[in-house]
């Protein structure tokens, strides 16, 4: 049986009248890349802050590596790495000195620290920039430095809080590859982001939270299975008759049909080979079309259907 790295039980956190976490529970197993999703104000950051004991909570319990986590458990804190959303490095220190400083908060031995710092620099690919000051680095390189500062002490649990915000696609891929490598080396990852494609690419399990509560949890396929829409068939065709559209609507597993700007969207719930049934219907009625294709639901749609909100509602 896999070791439980994080166990949160019935966590309650109130800010006066506002309930930020409402009996929130969660378990993360060793070796997972765990995606924490939720709109702004859903309680993601509060959860992470409670986990790191940066915030006190009103009720509930947090266990890390099978032991109760309190603000005095520096031994447990030393096994965690944090990569904050905002780049938190010293503008006045070089790349090397920044990593050395943050690593030094955990590792006292000079020789070990030197090796760890060099490993971290190599891991994020900043070998050529060790003597640079952060001001001279591009946004992507700065993000990589931010990551290096959080992982240099080789933590077992790493919390990434939206590490790819405002990063170019090339750097984003590098960062995602790096996170996958860290996981491959044995680190358990908690990953929060607004980018659904990153979650799909990276996370083995995903939790969607809203209003401080767990809304859904599972693998991406399990989550997709939780929503009505399982497939959308899209057809580009002109001048479709209402009577023909009604015939499409009457097909098995079809629960919604819309026709705008010469594009027919047929939403299906369950069933297999729905696209074949739609193609047959067009052929049987001798109706021409230019293009037909099928779209499987994305996590974005899952999120939208479950929470009723866009994930990036601030955009």
């Amino acid at each position, binding site marked *: 049986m896999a070791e439980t790295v994080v166990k949160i039980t019935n966590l309650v956190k109130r800010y006066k009248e506002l309930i930020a976490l409402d009996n929130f529970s969660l378990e993360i197993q060793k070796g997972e890349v765990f995606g924490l999703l939720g709109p702004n104000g859903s309680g993601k950051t509060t959860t992470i802050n409670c986990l790191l004991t940066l915030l006190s909570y009103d009720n509930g319990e947090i266990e890390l590596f099978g032991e109760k986590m309190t603000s005095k458990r520096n031994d447990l804190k030393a096994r965690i790495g944090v990569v904050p959303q905002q*780049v938190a490095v010293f503008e006045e220190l070089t790349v090397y000195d920044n990593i050395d400083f943050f690593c030094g*908060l*955990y590792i006292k031995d000079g020789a070990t620290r030197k090796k760890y710092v060099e490993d971290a620099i190599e891991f994020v690919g900043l070998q050529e920039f060790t003597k640079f000051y952060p001001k001279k680095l591009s946004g992507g390189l700065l993000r990589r430095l931010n990551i290096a500062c959080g992982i240099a002490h080789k933590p077992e649990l790493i919390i990434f809080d939206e590490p790819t915000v405002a990063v170019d696609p090339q750097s984003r891929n590098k960062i995602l590859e790096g996170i996958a490598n860290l996981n491959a080396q044995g680190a358990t990852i908690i990953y929060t982001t607004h980018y659904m494609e990153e979650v799909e690419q990276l996370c083995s399990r995903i939790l969607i939270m809203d209003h401080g509560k767990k809304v859904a949890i599972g693998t991406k396929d399990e989550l997709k299975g939780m929503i009505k829409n399982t497939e959308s068939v899209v057809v580009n065709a002109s001048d479709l008759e209402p009577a023909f559209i009604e015939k499409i609507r009457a097909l098995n597993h079809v629960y919604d049909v819309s026709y705008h700007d010469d594009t027919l969207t047929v939403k299906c719930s369950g069933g297999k080979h729905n696209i074949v049934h739609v193609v047959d219907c067009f052929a049987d009625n001798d109706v021409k079309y230019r293009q037909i294709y099928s779209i499987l639901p994305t996590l974005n749609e899952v999120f939208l259907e479950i929470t009723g909100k866009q994930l990036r509602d601030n955009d």
Partner: protein
Amino acid sequence: MQVFKAFFKVQKRYMIPAIMFTLMGVLMLIMNYAMAHRSTSDNGFQSMSLPIYLTDEDQSEVSSLLADYLRRTHKVDEAECSDEMLTERLYYQDLAAAITIPKGFGQAFTDKNTGDRMEIRSVVDEGLAEGHMLNLQLKSFLNSMYAFYHSGMSLTEAAAQAEQTQASDNYVSLVREATEEGTVNERSGESTSRLLFIFIPYVIMCSVFGSLLPAVMSFGESEKKRRENASGFAVWKRSFALAFGSLVFALAFCLIYVVILAFVCGSETFSEMWWLMALNLLIFTFSTVMMMAFLSVIPLKASVLSSIVSTVVSLGFAFLGGLFVPMQYLGEGVKMIGRFLPTYWYATAVEALDKGKGFASVLPYFGIELLFGLACLAIGLALSKASERAG
């Protein structure tokens, strides 16, 4: 140690303002040093020859001797001139004074039984120092001549002797003033130490606020603090390292000035007064570091705050505290505000020490300076705690 070492690495990036302010401080020291030496030298004084108008209504031997003396020492105009014209010439500063030797002056001067000597009539511009100086000179000459004459000299001899007395060099003698402790200090005020120590707090404030404040604020940025707090690195260790680093930096600056002052204060160096002034500077430096701790929690961009504080606040504190303008020239309102600032108590302590007061007299001033710093530190810590709770 990790935070302490990093603090100095961060600090290194803000050394330009510190170097700049140090150079400014050294320059100010040199200027004040030069000023101190010029103003205490009696060779710096020169007699002045003033344009005066003279009317001798007496025409006696005494009046002619006096007129001769005035002709030798000043530019005397004796041509006919109406009262209106005289007033006009005085107004336009063409004349420093209009002097009239009244009739009967000589007789009154030579008569020993005359209780009140007849006064010379002298009209001067009340707004100018020259006229008053001339009156003093005349009075001094006549007093001397009167004394010499009535001690047995002839009028000519008395006039010559009085003139010689006026012309001879004057030496400033040091006033021996007893302090409260009963010790005797040979000081009349305005010592070199006073002139040099008085403005150093301004440079210390500029250096601390311009160079140390942004470094401390860099460690206080919320995301970095969050990262440090998540690491399990004890908050007290971090705070201690930052406080210790700040003190080492500020004391290094203080020490630079103390060493320079040890060289330039000459014979006053290592005297009791000098040591107490150095102690005063050290206490002020502590107080400034504590003020900086308070300022570092103000939620403003470090570069903006540091430039505002190092210019506006330092300058304001310096002026209101009497670092640039001597206390006696400050208005009551300014002094009232100044009492709430450590610079005022620093300057008060320097002036007291300059006047020969001892440690017991200035101890309360040292205490007020420290209390100000401690109050700032307490407010800073409370604000920091409150913002952490809110965040």
